């Protein structure tokens, strides 16, 4: 008889320790494989490469804050996406919602620079949240009323947002002919996040922490959060329970868009002080991975954002130090993500070789 060599068997459940172990092993394997790949391509000692990575991410104060800035952006967007995805509303339109929030913030900085910093700050925050909401509202409305596919709708809204951004970049071009907006309010810093403890990112940090705590409580302990969980599990159950599904869908997506809009505000007023079509820079998609990997848990989202931000800055550092191009660092990120995602398989299933205890 020819026996199958390996068979896949579903696991009952795994202890917390077991899960931790699987994930740790997957990370170690990822680093090993990366090391081998790096050595084969470049001939460098992998340990040097990892040290370079760590230096790239946290080597100096500036670099550390830059990594943290990246992490905060990702976290903020992921926190925004979490309620939508928990409701199984596939909001892949964070890019557009961020851009719209960013445009509104930039607009406020340009046109309302004379109303005083505190007022401007609050106004920008509110308006960019509203703009993000509006961008998410259209797909939500169509989903609720006509059951259209929100994945395509939100995705296409991204392109509209990108075109709008191009328009405003052309309109606000400075200096003329540069095809960029340049740094807004370079001299007076109107609308810029003020520096606290020597960094302008401190306010972003506080904002993200507040959002994370808010989202944690909102999803777990409020009636709204309960409704989101029920709708996400089954619309029929929601109707059976007397929940108005369209209402919950629209309300939740408005919230999701608002937080993504705030992320745009953070990107413009809190970091780059300019707006361009790459202000969102694909973070709206990366954040989807963050939200899902964390299973919508706020604290875990922060951790995963940190890991991704670290990989990002670390790998671009090895790219430049080791004279590799950008793609090489993408390969490294790809390998590490592959192993982390792959570890989920081993948490849910196990492999068994042949038959155990064959009876003759």
């Amino acid at each position: 008889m020819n026996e199958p060599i390996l068979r896949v068997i579903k696991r009952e459940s795994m202890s917390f320790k077991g899960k931790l172990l699987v994930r740790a092993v997957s990370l170690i394997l990822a680093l090993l494989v990366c090391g081998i790949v790096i050595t084969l391509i470049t001939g460098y000692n992998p340990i040097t490469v990892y040290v370079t990575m760590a230096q790239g991410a946290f080597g100096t104060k500036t670099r550390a804050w830059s990594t943290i800035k990246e992490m905060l952006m990702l976290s903020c967007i992921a926190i925004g996406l979490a309620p939508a995805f928990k409701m199984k509303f596939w909001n892949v339109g964070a890019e557009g919602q961020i851009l719209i929030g960013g445009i509104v913030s930039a607009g406020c900085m340009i046109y309302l620079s004379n109303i005083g910093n505190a007022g401007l700050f609050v106004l920008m925050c509110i308006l960019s949240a509203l703009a993000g909401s509006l961008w998410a509202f259209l797909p939500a409305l169509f989903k609720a009323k006509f059951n259209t596919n929100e994945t395509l709708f939100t995705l296409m809204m991204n392109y509209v947002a990108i075109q709008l951004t191009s328009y405003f970049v052309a309109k606000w071009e400075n200096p003329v002919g540069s095809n960029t907006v340049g740094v807004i309010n370079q001299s007076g810093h109107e609308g810029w996040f003020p520096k606290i403890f020597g960094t302008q990112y401190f306010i972003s940090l506080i904002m993200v922490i507040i959002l994370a705590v808010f989202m944690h409580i909102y999803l777990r302990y409020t009636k709204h959060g309960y409704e989101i969980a029920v709708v996400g599990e089954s619309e029929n159950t929601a109707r059976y329970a007397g929940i108005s599904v369209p209402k919950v869908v629209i309300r939740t997506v408005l919230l999701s868009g608002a937080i993504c809009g705030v992320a745009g505000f953070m990107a413009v007023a809190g970091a780059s002080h300019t707006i361009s079509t790459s202000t969102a820079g694909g973070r709206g998609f990366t954040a989807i991975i963050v939200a899902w990997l964390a299973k919508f848990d706020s604290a875990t989202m922060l951790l995963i954002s940190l890991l991704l931000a670290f990989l990002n800055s670390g790998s671009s550092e090895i790219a430049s130090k080791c004279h590799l191009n950008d793609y090489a660092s993408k390969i490294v990120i790809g390998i590490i993500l592959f192993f982390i995602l792959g570890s989920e398989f081993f948490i849910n299933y196990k492999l068994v070789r042949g038959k155990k205890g064959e009876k003759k």
Partner: protein
Amino acid sequence: MAAITFEHISKRFGSVNANSDVSFSVNKGEILALLGENGSGKTTLMNMLSGIYYPDEGRILVDDKPVSIRGPREAYALGIGMVHQHFKLVDVFTAAENLVVGLEPDKKLDRKEIAADIKEICDKYKFDVNPDKKVYDMSVSEKQTLEIVKVLYRGANILILDEPTAVLTPQETERLFNVLRNMKQDGKTVIIITHKLHEVLSISDRVAILRKGEYIETVETAEATEEKLTELMVGKKVDLEIERPEIEDKKLRLEVRNLSCINNEGIKILKDISFDLYGGEILGIAGISGNGQKELLEAIAGLNLIEEGGSVKYHQPDTEDPVELKGMTPRRIRDLGVQLSFVPEDRLGMGLVGSMGMTENMMLKDYNSGRGIFTSKKAPKELAEKIMEELEVVTPGVTTPVRRLSGGNVQKVLVGREIAASPTVLMTAYAVRGLDINTSYTIYHLLNEQKKKGVAVIYVGEDLDVLLALCDRILVLCGGQANGILDGRTADKQEVGRRMSVIVGKEGEGHE
């Protein structure tokens, strides 16, 4: 001579032993009934025979030769074919196309030849299949026939049928059994999985019994009785009597008049249904599945839009004032103080939230009742613990996602919650589907308790024997129409079966 022999077969899923050390054999040319409660491992064992699973331990012998069956194709090569409980047909294909789907493409698709082959098989075993009919146009019984023809067309000598009668009327069941007898005469070996005892007794030669994944024994059908088989299946003596207490004081609770509904596809799924429902009675609803049972209950519960002209009047217990429920959402109905409880067919897809624990499921209908923006989990937790204790729900804890519980325990959670809401009307759809005998009897008992309290109970069921034993009156649905209301004490099973498939004249439509 043995067609199939199982030797020390074991199969585990996680920590669950689906089969442990099962050994028995199936004789050539016999009809063997595989009997066991839900979760006893019947389907798992047959899936190993048909190549869907692979045993962890032990081996299978076909014609006394050890074999390794690693996929359905290899099973077919050995002449083993299985008709699954959930049909595996392509809806948009014709009967003939479904037969050849997945076969080795070594020859051209010759429709004439296939049609001739189908005709030959049909003539031989007295089937009726139209090769050019599309599957989406077929009734459940036609689809099942096609599945059996498919298996025969692929050259199976050993047929496995997984609960084939669950979806059939008594008449269709009898027709299927005749076909099976013809096959047996032709020398085919048939294994039939079922938990309906009277069918086991009428069709099989021998009965193999599984209990909790273990093989108990094989008995000759001629020497078996329902009581003996139940005892072997459950492991202890079970009283198969269902009580039907008499309630004197019946009060009108629901008045349903000319109720019609249109489903999502725009098809009229309920046509002009009228009936009364009284407190202190159990009204059974019989019908082949998909004939409007689900939609009827959902319409009353405010989940389906009722067409113009229909009405559902609810009579309050204290004031007897009728309240019109038509056009109201479930929440509005609840806010009016109508105590309507509903155990839907789809337990985890409608009645409960699978990813949540018992506690959070308890608050599904009244999470919104307290003040403020936060949910309160104190009362739901107490209720969850009470239900867990009183109905003996087997779960690691009240926070374990209910999806992880077994079917019977899931149903206890759902029924427990709906009864705890102290309803005046309790609607249940397929309340015992998939439950083992003990849990089923617990549910019958709970429903009778509610009836004694004066609750108006609707019981949508599929087992006619149970409907006839439990219900005071039985409303038969056929094609979305009310096809008569029969008295549960005097109704005859054949008559109910006939009304499930054929609309009878107007004289059968009286309300009492």
